C-alpha cells in the first residue's frame, strides 16, 4: 500500500484542510442560529464567546490553508506542460483536455473551482472578525447576524463547489508523482 508525495499532499489539501472545513460549517451555522432562536436564544458567556471566536478563526485559517496550498502547491503540478511525446497521465490538465469526454472537467470544473474557492477564506475572515468585534451583542443585532449567516453560507457553497470539482478532477486525472511513500507491504495473491 503506497502513495506518491503528490497524492499525499493532494489528500492534505482536499481531505484534511477542505474536509475539516466542510465539517466545521455546521458548528458555525448552529451557533449563529442558536443566537437567533425565538423565545430563549443562546446567550454565550465570556468563555463560550471566546471559544466561538476561536472556532471561526480556525475555520478561516483552514480555508486559507486550503486555497493557498491548492493554488501554490497542487495547481502547478496539475497545469504542468508535458514535453513532446510524454505520457499525459502525469499531466492532469493536458490529459483531461485531450478527450472530448473529459475536457469539460477542466474547462468548467477546474476553471470555476480555482476562482470560486477564494470566496470561502474571504467570507470566513470577515465572519471571524465580525464575531470577534461584536461577540454576544450579535444576539440583539438581528440585521448583522443575518449578514453573518449569509457570509457563512456563501463560504459553504463556495467550498462545496470547490470540493465537488476537486474530488471529480482527482478521480478522472489524479495529481500523482514525486517520491513514493510505502504505508504497508502485503502479500500478493500467489503468496497467500
Amino acid at each position, binding site marked *: 500500500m503506497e502513495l506518491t508525495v503528490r497524492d499525499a499532499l493532494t489528500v492534505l489539501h482536499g481531505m484534511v484542510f477542505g474536509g475539516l472545513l466542510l465539517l466545521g460549517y455546521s458548528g458555525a451555522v448552529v451557533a449563529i442560529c442558536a443566537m437567533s432562536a425565538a423565545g430563549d436564544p443562546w446567550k454565550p458567556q465570556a468563555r463560550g464567546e471566546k471559544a466561538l471566536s476561536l472556532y471561526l478563526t480556525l475555520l478561516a485559517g483552514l480555508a486559507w490553508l486550503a486555497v493557498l496550498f491548492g493554488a501554490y502547491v497542487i495547481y502547478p503540478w496539475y497545469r504542468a506542460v508535458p514535453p513532446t511525446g510524454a505520457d499525459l497521465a502525469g499531466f492532469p490538465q493536458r490529459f483531461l483536455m485531450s478527450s472530448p469526454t473529459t475536457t469539460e472537467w477542466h474547462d468548467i470544473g477546474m476553471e470555476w473551482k480555482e476562482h*470560486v474557492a477564494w470566496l470561502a477564506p*474571504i467570507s470566513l475572515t470577515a465572519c471571524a472578525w465580525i464575531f470577534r468585534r461584536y461577540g454576544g451583542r450579535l444576539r440583539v443585532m438581528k*440585521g*448583522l447576524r443575518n449578514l453573518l449567516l*449569509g457570509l457563512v453560507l456563501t463560504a459553504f457553497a463556495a467550498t462545496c463547489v470547490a470540493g465537488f470539482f476537486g474530488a471529480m478532477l482527482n478521480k478522472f486525472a489524479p495529481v500523482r508523482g514525486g517520491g513514493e511513500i510505502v504505508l504497508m507491504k502485503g502479500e500478493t495473491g500467489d503468496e497467500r
Partner: protein
Amino acid sequence: MTSAETAGGPNGSGAAAVLAAAIGWFVLGVLALAGDTVPSVKRALTLWKPTGGLSGVTTVAIVAWLVVWLVLGRRWRDRDVKLGVVGASSAALLVGGLLLTFPPFMDFLQGK
C-alpha cells in the same frame, strides 16, 4: 435594522466587513474575466509562473478587499448604517462575482 442595532452598538464596522468581502468577490470575478479575455492582462497577472494568471487574480482581489475593508471600516466605525442596503448590494456583488467566474458565462460574454 438601525438605531444602534437595538442597543448592540453601531453596526458600521460589521457592515464594512461584509461589503468589503463582497467587493473582493466581485473584483475576483472581474479580474478572472479580464485575464481570460485579454492576453496582456493575463501576462500582467502572472505574478508566479507555475500558478499562472491565478496568482495575480487572487492577489490583486485580496489587496482590493483589504484596502476597501480598511477604508470602509474607518469611515463607518462609529456609524449605524442601513444593513438592508449593504445586504442587497453584497448579494448583487456576490451574484456578479459568481457569474463572472463561471466559465459558461465567461464564454457567453466573450461570444465564444
